[in-house]
Every structure is written in structure tokens, then in C-alpha cells.
């Protein structure tokens, strides 16, 4: 098992705080463990990038890129102390030497500062087997966003070599809980996908649950019980400004943004306690009822085309996944049959797969159902796995589980080949939601 201990430097945190007035200093860093990688990871040498002193804040861009690639479980980075030369340009790479050291690829680069307000990351990716230059790019970033720029370099390298768009320059939101029951403290947190730049964006003595991103990445919606009843809030990620959008009688739960971020699907119960699915138009405030059944209907999620909504219902006894038109006026169609319990579905970015929580004889696991064939396969084996959320590239899921009595976050590739764990030093962590691509 390889362990990547992620710890924010004071410098990068300071820059982040300066950038975001809403930030609260983070309490604990996330730790990423690769619990299972591919059997034959791709060997790559990432040479330290030439620095731009005074402007780069001391950030080691090459190290960030290497850690990203390794954290995917699909790459093995060459140890720097084994490197015999440190080229920063492709033309200075002695391919034969790097090949002898068993590398298939090499990434070299340098930071160029034209002014204190601008940094350019120049980088070249070479195929050492045929000498071909695969990437020769310039990426312009603000100095305060240099780490983000490094993640974008990793995204490009990952895509060039694997054919799948990288998702390193993305963020995750999740809930943490501190203290013994019944007095607990709830926080909604945001972190980069590598665990850095963690910050609290909301905290309460009452439960916070069901965070979800708007597809444009500008907003996070969540449920808060701060007024002793559930209410749905929509909070602007950048500023922390927030608005209460639903505090009707009974339950206000399970918010889900439409693909164009203009509507929220949600669960309402009214005072009679009957949970049904509704769509709230954030512009007109118009409310459309999609289901009307005495059973529990909840956990709506939108298909990428915005025409269909998937949800959980126990109208047939145990909870199962159903599909209904987002316009309403349609009888829901049941989709899951093979398990006694299927709940909280999320649909893959390409619209072909459902990730969900399914129970079998050994507990609650993350499973994937192919929408065309209806075939269901289990991806995880934890006893209390829940809350799957797709990476925006569809290649991975982040989810929550329990290990030795503690809530942990974990990731699994949709092909099941790579598993990772993101563990917080203290407190429970749960309900991870992977943010969208930022560009």
C-alpha cells in the first residue's frame, strides 16, 4: 500500500485565504491511501519543474502532478533521488538514460513569470519509447491558483496517456460530524480532490445533510436542520452567500440541481408526512409535483439530458429505483429488481449507468446498474457503504463507508480496478459529492 500524506503548506493556505474571504481555517487534512491499484501501472518520470522564485509561493508543481498521477492508481512515478539529470526542456532529455531507468514517459516543465500577477506553466510530455513529443503546452495562471494549474497539467497528461479526461482539477464537498451523540457538531466542507485547501463552508449544532453541486459549479445546495425543521439552502461556493429556497411544512429534502442549474428536484412531505418528488423552478418559484403515492418517494436525481428523473420509492415494499418524466404527468417505471433494497441512485455523466446503494446478505454496498441491459454488479464490499457520487469524467465514484466505527470516504474506479481511501484525521466524514469540471 502506498500512502500519500497530503498536508497543506502554510503558504498555499495563506494564498487561499486571501483569495476567499469566506474561508475558515481547516481542522484536519485528508489522507489518500491507494488500497488497490492496477497490477501494471504506467511508469513515468516527472522531473521537478524550473521554479519562478518570489512568485510561485514555494509550490513544487512537479510533485503535485506526480502525486495526482500516482493517486489515480494507474501510474508509478520515478523516485526523484534516482534521477541522474534534471532537464526542464524536452530537447535536453536523454531518452536512452530514462528508458534504461524503465520509464515509458517523461514530463518536464518550467514556470515562467512575466509579471507578479501572472505565471505560465510550460510543460512537455515525451514518449520515451519512440521519442515523440505528446504535449508541448503553455498554461497561464494567477500565482494564487498555481496548485490548480498543476492539477490541470496532471489532467492533460492523464488524458494524453490513458485516453480519459483527467479529473484532478476538481473539488469535493462533504459533511463531517464531531463529538459523541447526542451532542454533535456538523460541518459542510470543501476540498480539492487531492485533499488540499480544505475549508468549512457551513457549520451547525443541528444536522447538515445531502449536499449537492450545481452543474455549473457555482452553487452547493444542502439540507439544514438549524431551525429544528428541515430546510433547503443554496449557497454560493465562492462567497458563502446563501439563500433558503424551501422551508415548507414537513420534510424538505434531497435537493438535486437540473443540468442547466435552473431547477431543483426535491422531496416534500407536507404536514401529512407523505414524501413525494417535486421540481422547484428557482426562477418562477413554480412547483411541479412529479409523484403522488402514499409510499416514501425521495432521492431524486436528473438524467444528463434533463428529461428524466430517477428516484427511490418503497411503493412495492422495500426501496427500489424508479424513473419518471421531469415534466410530470407520467406513471413511474421501476428499474431495479434483483436486490431487496436499492436506493439513492446517481447517473453516470454519459447517462448509461446508475450507481446506487444495494443491500445483499452481507450489508449495504455500492452497485452499478447498466440502464440498457438492467444488469447489476456490486463494486464495493463494505458493510455500510453509501452515497456514491460520480467523478465528472465518469471513471470513478467517491462514496462513504465505515471502517472500525469511523466514517471514511473512499473511491473506486467504475471498472473496479482501483480503490482509494480518503480519511480525515478526526471526526466522521460522510456524503461526499464530486464537483463538476471547472472549465
Amino acid at each position: 500500500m502506498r500512502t500519500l500524506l497530503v498536508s497543506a503548506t502554510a503558504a498555499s493556505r495563506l494564498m487561499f485565504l486571501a483569495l476567499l474571504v469566506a474561508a475558515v481555517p481547516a481542522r484536519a487534512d485528508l489522507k489518500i491511501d491507494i488500497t488497490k491499484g492496477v497490477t501494471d501501472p504506467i511508469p513515468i518520470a516527472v522531473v521537478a519543474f524550473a521554479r519562478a522564485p518570489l512568485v510561485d509561493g514555494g509550490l513544487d508543481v512537479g510533485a503535485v502532478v506526480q502525486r495526482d498521477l500516482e493517486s489515480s492508481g494507474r501510474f508509478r512515478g520515478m523516485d526523484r533521488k534516482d534521477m541522474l539529470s534534471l532537464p526542464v526542456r524536452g530537447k535536453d532529455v536523454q531518452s536512452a538514460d530514462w528508458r534504461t531507468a524503465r520509464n515509458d514517459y517523461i514530463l518536464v516543465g518550467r514556470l515562467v513569470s512575466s509579471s507578479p500577477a501572472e505565471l505560465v506553466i510550460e510543460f512537455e510530455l515525451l514518449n520515451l519509447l519512440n521519442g515523440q513529443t505528446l504535449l508541448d503546452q503553455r498554461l497561464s495562471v494567477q500565482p494564487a491558483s498555481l496548485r490548480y494549474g498543476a492539477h490541470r497539467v496532471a489532467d492533460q497528461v492523464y488524458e494524453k496517456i490513458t485516453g480519459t479526461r483527467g479529473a484532478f482539477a476538481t473539488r469535493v464537498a462533504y459533511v463531517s460530524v464531531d463529538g459523541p451523540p447526542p451532542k454533535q457538531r456538523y460541518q459542510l466542507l470543501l476540498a480539492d480532490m487531492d485533499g488540499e485547501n480544505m475549508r468549512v463552508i457551513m457549520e451547525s449544532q443541528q444536522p447538515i445533510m445531502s449536499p449537492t453541486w450545481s452543474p455549473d459549479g457555482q452553487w452547493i445546495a444542502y439540507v439544514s436542520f438549524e431551525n429544528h425543521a428541515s430546510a433547503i439552502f443554496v449557497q454560493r461556493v465562492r462567497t458563502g452567500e446563501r439563500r433558503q429556497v424551501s422551508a415548507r411544512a414537513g420534510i424538505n429534502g434531497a435537493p438535486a440541481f437540473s443540468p442547466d442549474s435552473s431547477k431543483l428536484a426535491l422531496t416534500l412531505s407536507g404536514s401529512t408526512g407523505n414524501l413525494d418528488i417535486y421540481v422547484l423552478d428557482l426562477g418562477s418559484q413554480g412547483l411541479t409535483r412529479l409523484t403522488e403515492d402514499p409510499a416514501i418517494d425521495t432521492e431524486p436525481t436528473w438524467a444528463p439530458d434533463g428529461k428524466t428523473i430517477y428516484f427511490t420509492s418503497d411503493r412495492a415494499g422495500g426501496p427500489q429505483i424508479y424513473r419518471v418524466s421531469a415534466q410530470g404527468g407520467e406513471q413511474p417505471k421501476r428499474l431495479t429488481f434483483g436486490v431487496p433494497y436499492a436506493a439513492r441512485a446517481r447517473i453516470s455523466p454519459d447517462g448509461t449507468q446508475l450507481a446506487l446503494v444495494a443491500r445483499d446478505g452481507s450489508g449495504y454496498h455500492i452497485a452499478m446498474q447498466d440502464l440498457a441491459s438492467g444488469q447489476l454488479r456490486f463494486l464495493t464490499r463494505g458493510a455500510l457503504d453509501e452515497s456514491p457520487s460520480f467523478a465528472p469524467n465518469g471513471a470513478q465514484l467517491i462514496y462513504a463507508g465505515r471502517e472500525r466505527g469511523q466514517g471514511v470516504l473512499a473511491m473506486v474506479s467504475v471498472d473496479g480496478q482501483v480503490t482509494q481511501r480518503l480519511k480525515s484525521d478526526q471526526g466522521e466524514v460522510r456524503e461526499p459529492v464530486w464537483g463538476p469540471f471547472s472549465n
Partner: protein
Amino acid sequence: MRKILTVVLMASVLALGACSGKKVKPAPGASGQAIASTDAGAQTSGVASSGADLGTGGSGSGGVGALGPSGALGSQRVIYFDFDSSDIRPEFVDVVAAHGRFLAGNASIRVRLEGNTDERGSREYNIGLGERRAQTVKRALALQGVKESQIATVSYGEERPAAAGSDEPAYSKNRRVEIVYIN
């Protein structure tokens, strides 16, 4: 797009009070309170802390003073449930009835029924199960003549466990409805 959504959301807050004509009504007083807290949240750069004084609700401690029925039955404020069930167990029928008689005879007193589940299964679905339990107790109280206006329900699902642990002793303490006297 960004600007439009901001305007939309501001409008949505203003429109909240006007939603009462719709099928689903806002809770009396709840929206005003929440909007105030929204404003406070905005002033403190978005990190909104809810008051610590609100944290005492439920927990079955009976720390709400003299309100509620007296005697052994009346001092019991927590109704426990079996796995995957919202039926009131026989040993709790008399407890619920005692609270029902007290509330029916004191029409100005109100309770909040807080439904809870154990940690197994998905969170929002558990909110539904907790609500089902709270509604069962609400119906039992109504049978004693308690008015609808005296009873509020809230479901915390698995979000506010009474006991920590992933075993049946903890689970059995967490599948519950707490009867909380609120005035």
C-alpha cells in the same frame, strides 16, 4: 448566467411567504426565522452557526422542566421501535396514551415529535422512515383527542443518533420517536 441565478435566488426568498397558497404550506413562523438566519449567515461570510441553545431538543433527557404529564408514564419521553417498523410496540401504548390525555386536557401545550432511525441504509430514505414513525405517534395522540395544531413532527432520520456504535444495542436506542414539549 451567474447574475441571473443570483436574482432568481433573491426573488425566491422574497417569494417564500407568498407560497402558502400552494399545496405545500410553509411552517408557521419557520420561514421568517430562517430568513433572519440567512441574513446573519451572509454577514458572517457564509459560515452560519446555529444557536447552541437549540441543541437541547429531544435527547430524551426530559430536561424541559415541568412541562408534560407527571408520573412514571409521563416521564417517559422516548418511544422505541423495531427494525424496519413504524408500529408502536405494546409496552409503549400506555406511554403514548398518557401524553395524549395530558395534551388533550391542555390545549395550549404543544409537542414536537422527532422521528429517528438507525444508521443502516441511505440517509434521505431514512428521513422518510423517521417521518413515518413520527406520524404513527401523531395519529395515536390524535386518537386521544389531541388537536393537530398541538403537534409538530420532524424527522432526523439517522442524523441524530442517541447512541454511537454499529451494533444492535446502539441501533435499538436510535430507532425512536422523542416527544419534546416546546412551550
